């Protein structure tokens, strides 16, 4: 049950060319892992997508795979394109693209440290990216419980309470009213 203001916002969003939750001009291509680098090379050399915007991973623990997203940009047609590759979570490793863009080595280093995805041959992929002396599992994996780790390792102060401001104000101002949203 959307209010009038929410209806207006959704109309503006549709007019600006959003399809679902993505901009209309942004396309994603799903590629098999063994063809991905060849496809990206073709995008770079033949079709003019010469700029690597970013390269990241999403952990789908329910489907037990990592979805890597390479975002490339074409300066002539001013378009972004996303290439998505699925790799299995166990023994995750992918071909390196540092020969296409040298700065991809840094993204690969980050993914190695944070997710544990190996990129054999990438320069400096085993160097620590942010964490120093980290000996546990890769922290961005969803099976890593960061709250439990923090409570065990970093001496938490007993007696820590959280005050939710909305609940506090409701209790003080309108204690007997039901929630209306």
């Amino acid at each position: 049950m959307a209010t009038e203001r929410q209806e207006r916002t959704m109309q503006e969003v549709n007019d600006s060319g959003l399809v679902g939750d993505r901009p209309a001009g942004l396309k994603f291509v799903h590629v098999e892992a063994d063809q991905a680098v060849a496809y990206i090379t073709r995008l770079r050399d033949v079709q003019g997508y010469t700029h690597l915007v970013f390269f990241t991973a999403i952990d789908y623990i329910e489907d037990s795979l990592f979805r890597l997203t390479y975002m490339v940009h074409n300066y002539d047609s001013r378009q972004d394109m996303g290439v998505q590759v699925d790799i299995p979570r166990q023994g995750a490793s992918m071909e390196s693209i540092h020969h296409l863009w040298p700065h991809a080595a840094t993204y690969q280093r980050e993914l190695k440290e944070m997710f544990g995805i190996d990129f054999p041959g990438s320069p400096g992929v085993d160097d620590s990216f942010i964490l120093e002396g980290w000996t546990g599992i890769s922290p961005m994996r969803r099976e890593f419980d960061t709250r439990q780790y923090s409570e065990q390792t970093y001496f938490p102060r007993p007696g820590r309470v959280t005050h939710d401001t909305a609940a506090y104000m409701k209790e003080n101002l309108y204690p007997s009213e039901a929630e209306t949203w």
Partner: protein
Amino acid sequence: MKESNMDGLQSTATETEQQLEDMAKEMRLANDGLSEQDKGYFCDVRPHRVEPYKGIMESFANWARSQSLWILGFGTGCGAIELRPLMTSRFDMYRYGIQARPTPRQSCVFIIGGYASVKTLKRIVRSYEQMQGPKFVLGLGSCTVNGGMYWDSYNTINRIDQYIPVDVYIAGCMPRPEALLGGFIKLKQMIREGKCEGMNKYIDDFDWYKANQKQIIHDWNMPDYNW
């Protein structure tokens, strides 16, 4: 009275045999096994307590220390953003005698601004130990008190007073410059009352602090005490 840390070895002559043995075990040179070139970089002397003066001399010294607080210009976290308005005209910390110095050797107040990740904690410990006593620590923001916003993060510590002694906490996320000035006024009051003996507290509980630090910081590639 003033003591140079290098004279620590001579002053152990009057301690008991057991303590001498313990210290001999600790003073196994930390630079064993390094090349001749690198040996000089590592210091291997434990810190020694320096007692305050007595009576009116200490009161006068504390008054002078409270009127001239030199903070270390090391912005450890997001708290550093609140130090910049302090230096400008509106909140003006210079009228309180507070100046920013770039090196830990010359400063006496260390402001831990905000969260401290494990990486930063190593540098905080190193800088804190290089400061000359008496030295004071201000914990700025809730992250130094109980972890604040990042209490469940795998990379930030929850309580800074497990690793270095803290004199005044200033709660908030971030506290406004007025709150920070209020914290400084509280610190001055405490210094004048003689309650800020963080340096000696660190030396007394040195093993406990070191054990906590080494538990968190895994790649310990620096001396035990960085004077």
